[in-house]
């Protein structure tokens, strides 16, 4: 029975965390593509005095007064930063650094001095009160639901509604503010709406995970999604998905290891980002490493075949003595080709199968055509033709070979006087 009750408490807290995280992830998508991530951080800190003053004036956490105070504080941050920039010519990053730390310090001092009178203290400012959220409940349609969860749902719907209503304008402004302005879109209003949405999401996030970690909830899901997808609407969908998954996962881990849910949610978010950096399709570390390795493997294979073919050509027969390979990768490629039967050894000599000979001929053909083309057009001395051709031979396809051949229209001889093999049939 007792464990049942505690399970309910944890389930509600987890659901609250997921809802809050989703709101932050949604806003974060736009913040990240607009290069406003650090402004999100500044707003997350700066809402504190707004919240503190509103609570001091009698507003309750999660009530409309608190949200109004927070939005006012967020807009004040931006306005102050810009006023300082315009007034005394201070760079905006330094200005933001001054404003948000000062406002946060002010908030902490207010909260500390008034801790006995309001249900906020520096502890929950920094850690959030997710773990306590489930104990303060209200009745919604016959069901006892934590007040914080209701707030989180309202915030999510509000933020999602506000952004959905202005979505086309938001995206246009994010990617090309000048064109958006020229097209008659009220860019300032669109940006203010985004800032207000950030402030509202930050208040919800502040209650859940504390003022400092809101930045993780805002930025990390979007930064993760940005690595995984290309389109803006998919970015937002993936960001919200990552945000919800990390919130649930982080809460569960914190429950299991008996530590701060806020901290673990940020850690899991960091894990998601690291996995995305590593595994993103296309330009993740792993994908790039694999693509690079495959290219190097093909180059080594083709170099190996071409070397044998050239040796055979030099000796004028089907089998030849071939020197040691130059790199360990080429040695591996040679062994691999031998296993596949493409390369055969016969009393100290090496020979190619029909298939291997055709493949080698195409590499050599690419090489010599390219040398011939360079020799005609690039005015390079003859001993400078080999290195570029040695690299480009791996990147020239049949179509380009035909094109070069048609353009050269001279004999089938390269600048060194060697025959260019004909294109393979079929």
């Amino acid at each position: 029975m007792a464990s049942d009750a505690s399970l309910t408490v944890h389930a509600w807290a987890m659901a609250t965390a997921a809802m809050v995280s989703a709101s932050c992830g949604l806003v974060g998508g736009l913040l990240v593509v607009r290069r406003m991530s650090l402004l999100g951080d500044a707003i997350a800190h700066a809402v504190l005095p707004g919240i503190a003053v509103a609570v001091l004036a009698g507003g309750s956490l999660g009530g409309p007064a608190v949200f109004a105070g927070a939005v006012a504080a967020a807009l004040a941050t931006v306005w102050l930063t810009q006023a300082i920039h315009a007034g005394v010519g201070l760079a905006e990053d330094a200005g933001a650094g001054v404003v948000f730390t000062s406002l946060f310090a002010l908030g902490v001092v207010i909260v500390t001095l008034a801790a006995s009178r309001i249900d906020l203290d520096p502890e929950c400012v920094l850690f959030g009160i997710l773990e306590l959220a489930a104990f303060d409940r209200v009745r919604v349609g016959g069901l006892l639901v934590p007040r914080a969860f209701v707030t989180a749902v309202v915030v999510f719907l509000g933020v999602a509604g506000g952004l959905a209503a202005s979505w086309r304008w938001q995206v246009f402004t994010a990617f090309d503010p000048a064109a958006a302005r020229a097209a008659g879109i009220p860019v300032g209003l669109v940006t203010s709406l985004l800032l207000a949405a950030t402030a509202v999401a930050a208040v919800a996030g502040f209650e859940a995970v504390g003022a400092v970690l809101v930045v993780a909830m805002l930025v990390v899901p979007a930064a993760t999604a940005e690595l995984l997808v290309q389109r803006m609407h998919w970015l937002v969908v993936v960001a919200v998905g990552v945000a919800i998954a990390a919130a649930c996962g982080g809460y569960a881990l914190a429950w299991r290891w008996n530590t701060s849910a806020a901290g673990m949610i940020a850690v899991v978010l960091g894990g998601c980002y690291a996995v995305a950096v590593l595994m993103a399709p296309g330009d993740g570390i792993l994908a790039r490493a694999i693509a690079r390795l495959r290219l190097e493997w093909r180059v080594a294979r083709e170099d190996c075949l071409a070397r044998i073919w050239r040796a055979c050509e030099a000796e004028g027969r089907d089998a030849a003595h071939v020197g040691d390979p130059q790199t360990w990768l080429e040695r591996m490629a040679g062994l691999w080709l031998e296993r596949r039967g493409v390369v055969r050894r016969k009393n100290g000599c090496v020979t190619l199968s029909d298939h291997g000979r055709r493949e080698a001929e195409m590499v050599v053909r690419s090489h010599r055509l390219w040398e011939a083309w360079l020799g005609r057009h690039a005015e390079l001395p003859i001993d400078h033709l080999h290195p570029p051709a040695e690299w480009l031979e791996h990147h020239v396809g049949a179509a380009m070979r035909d094109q070069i051949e048609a353009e050269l229209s001279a004999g089938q001889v390269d600048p060194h006087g060697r025959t260019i093999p004909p294109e393979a049939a079929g």
Partner: protein
Amino acid sequence: MPPLIGPVSLVAVASGPGLVSYNTLVVLGGVATVGFAAGVVGSLALLRKRPLVGDAAAHATLAGVAAAFLATGRRDLPALLGGALVAAVAALAVLVLIRRVARTRDDAATAVVIGVSFGIGLALLAGITARGIPGSGGLEQFLLGHTAALTAGDARLLAAVSLAAVAIVALGFKEAVVLCFDPQFAAATGWPVGLLDLVLVALVAVMVVVGLPAAGAVLVTALVVIPPVAARQWTDRAGPLLVTAGVIGLTAAVTGVVVTASRPGLSTGPVIVLAAALICGVSFLVAPRRGVIAQWLARVRRERRWARGDLSAWDLADADEAVPLPLPAVSHVAAVPLRGADGK
């Protein structure tokens, strides 16, 4: 130490006679030195246009402190700060790594490092607290700063490191100024610009770590940012800027220690930051030439002169700004040919 007489007598007034111990004095001196050095080092970061370079490092220090406590099992300040320094450097390294391998924008990368590293610290800290590991009480003071628990030995360590940082800045002052104002020239002269930048970032990281006991992980960045911004209002020269920023940082730090000594519940960090912010706000308003009031007065005077028809004589200070051409003159010139065309 004559400069300390003022604040010390304030402490005496605030906390009653007989409570000003030798320990309090040394802590006050140590934190004051930290404030001074943070202002000096921060000025260079501001001039190099990287005022927030320490922010990611600052948030990461918490994880370092918690990890160092877990490793040593004691709340020994040098060990904890050593851990903090390792974490700060690691955070900066991760930032550089992200820039190299991922296509995340710089600002988002910074935000990711800030959020995640602080999350790690918070999770470690909460885990330590929840398990009630003996001796762990007071670790949370590294979040917002708390100087009451510092010993004289701790304060001496902080002061020594801060003085070393100031000494390094003094030794490399010429190089630093050239690096800040003309990096291309520095590079063309053959100076190792990358290395100098690295030294600057390292100094900021060290100041962030040393400022940790006083200002806390969340707000220690302000110690490096706000005093230089305030000092910038008062001078256009690099040397005086560094010294002014140092003095402002020192004043804020001393204020924080003195105020929190009489209000035990209050953390030192927020008070230091508020004191610095107050000085900064006043500087924005009243500084000569750059201040808002001075600029407003200059504009009023200029417009009066223009109203009198005197367009020639504005002093050099006004000419520094991009003064727009007086509008009546332009419209007058533009109107002349039009009228002429009408007449024909």
